[in-house]
């Protein structure tokens, strides 16, 4: 019979062991992506960051895809941030509780729709709609990607901003109201500035989702490895890192697979850095208010 203390210790270490699995997974993901990517990195080196992509000539510059990822993510934010922030302020500060309880699940439903369904609808309905409206060359475009990703980033931005707005202590708002400010002035001058780091973390997470989204983008972006001229021409088609992997991986063999894994590493690194920044920002919010409570 083991002593109770020893047993408790054992349980403790068991749980610690389980908890380290997540760390191990991150480590493994990086290692395995790197192992698969290494032949390409070794062979092409910094050429992988050039803008020339031609499989027949063994040119694998990923810059067009990186550019495309950034373009659609920024575009998606332009669509999603004003709407999402407005909706979050409405939900957290203005909506009566009855409506809030009703609307919040709808926002969650928006987040729950699978990305392939967004892509399907986007490709079939939105692509043709934009084609007809803007008289573009074809049905694939950055614009379609931006709109779909904007809608997909909305729920994240709404619910995370909503949380951080809700986390602003009531004392702060009460003080402002007591000084004679209207509710709207309080929201504008007190609540939003207080929640700003939480809101920025929401925006970064939204951008992370937009960069990492695959299925919806690959069906509408056109998958052409070219930077549009001029670069802000969102009516052209292009490619993103995710769409590049998803489309080419299906038929890839040989060195291209390694190149695609390199794209995977880039993606993983970009999004990991964004998660860390968002995390630090969020922690700042909680730290700020915990002292005041």
């Amino acid at each position, binding site marked *: 019979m083991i002593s109770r203390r020893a047993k408790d210790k054992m349980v403790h270490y068991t749980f610690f062991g389980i908890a380290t699995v997540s760390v191990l997974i991150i480590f493994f993901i990086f290692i395995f992506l790197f192992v698969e990517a290494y032949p390409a990195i070794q062979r092409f080196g910094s050429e992988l960051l050039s803008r020339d992509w031609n499989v027949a000539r063994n040119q694998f510059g990923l810059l067009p895809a990186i550019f495309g990822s950034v373009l659609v993510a920024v575009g998606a934010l332009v669509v999603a941030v004003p709407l999402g922030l407005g909706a979050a302020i409405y939900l957290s500060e203005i909506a009566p509780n009855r409506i809030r309880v009703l609307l919040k699940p709808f926002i969650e439903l928006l987040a729950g729709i699978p990305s392939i369904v967004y892509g399907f609808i986007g490709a079939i309905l939105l692509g043709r709609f934009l084609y007809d409206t803007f008289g573009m060359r074809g049905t694939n475009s950055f614009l379609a990607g931006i709109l779909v990703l904007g809608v997909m980033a909305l729920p994240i931005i709404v619910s995370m901003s909503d949380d951080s707005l809700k986390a602003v202590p009531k004392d702060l708002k009460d003080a402002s109201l007591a000084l004679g400010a209207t509710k709207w002035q309080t929201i504008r001058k007190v609540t939003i500035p207080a929640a700003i780091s939480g809101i920025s973390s929401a925006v970064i997470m939204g951008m992370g989702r937009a960069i990492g989204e695959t299925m919806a983008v690959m069906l509408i972006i056109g998958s052409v490895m070219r930077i549009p001229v001029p670069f802000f021409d969102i009516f052209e088609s292009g490619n993103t890192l995710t769409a590049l992997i998803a489309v080419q991986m299906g038929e890839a063999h040989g060195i291209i697979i390694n190149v695609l894994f390199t794209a995977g590493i880039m993606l993983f690194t970009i999004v990991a850095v964004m998660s*860390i920044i968002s995390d630090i920002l969020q922690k700042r919010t909680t730290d700020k208010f915990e002292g005041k409570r």
Partner: protein
Amino acid sequence: MNIRKLISLWIFTVSTVVAILGFWALATRMDVEYWMFFVALTLISASYYLSGIYHHMTEKDMNGVFMLFYASIVLMVAAFSFYLPEILDMRQWEINARIPNFFFYSLFMLFLGIFSSYLSFRPFYNFKKEGAQMGAYYMLYITMIFTLIPLFVILFNIVYRGAGGITWEFLTEDIISMGERGGVYPAILGTLALILVTAVIVLPLGVGTAIYLAEYARKGLAVRVIRTAVNILQGTPSIVHGLFGYAFFVLILFDGQKCLLAGALTLAILTLPIVIRSAEEALNAVPGDLRDASLALGASKWQTIKKVVLPPSLPGILTGTVLGLGRAAGETAPIMFTAVYFSGAGTPSSLLRPIQALPYHLLSLYRLIGYRDVDLQAWATALLLLIIVLGVNVSAIIIREKYRQRF
């Protein structure tokens, strides 16, 4: 209600109608003529003049109202000076679009309508602070509405176009002639099997990690590393999970064979952070007093967790797990290289054999649209997928609402 308020109300109504017309015209690509935009502008401007007269306005009061005029003048001048041709050929600036002029007119109408209805709150509240506040609130309602519009568009289209395809045959048969006939039975079972196996893998890992973080961990480097890892994992794009699953599970563990277990393992990694977060939240919601009481009675820490902390936090843990599984059920990218075939895999019978799954089925059918007559089947698959995923989400939300606020 005095005449001034009536006028403001009139302005609001007219502006809203203009905004809705503008939106409708945008959505249906209605051929809006220039004069429609012009009439809307004149109507609204005249109403504002009327309102100004009735308010005997001072210069300061007029500021807000003048903003509208400035805006309308700018818009009008812009519209005139461009003298928008029937189709604005942006290719002359190397931009790959030819935008018909009615697009601009309906867009102008939408913004004009929203902006002027926003301003109409000021005269309504006699230029007091409430006016600005209500105007701002109104704008927030509008953002909320625009946030919900895509949801309704998506739901409406899928239900409207897909409902006809959901038949008994569709639910109970395998694919026949590349999806033209037959159904998705193996894909339904495959998706269910995937999330079931995923649940079995992810629950112990997720809940275990959460218990460690919530109950055992003290602040320190180890905990910070674990938390950062969980956060990174949460943000990791699903296609990266797919690549990893292919490189590790498929190539190394299963000898190059796509299979159910490889897909489930990949999905387990995807859902792990969701389960950890919600489980930790649920554990933290249990008041410390309960733990202290149990410890004071001489129970060991593990006994306390097992008997006191876990039972009341179970609904929370379940909610999180179910939400995570809902996400897993709809994911395509992680299983694309690790588990699925379009057809022929049959009903799932072994962990080590490939399966069919609904999200991938939808992708494959989408690919065949135009070549094969699969439109209805594709929409029906989308609807079915949506029903399953949203059903899972709704049940999670119900669990949460039912057991909410226990302490």
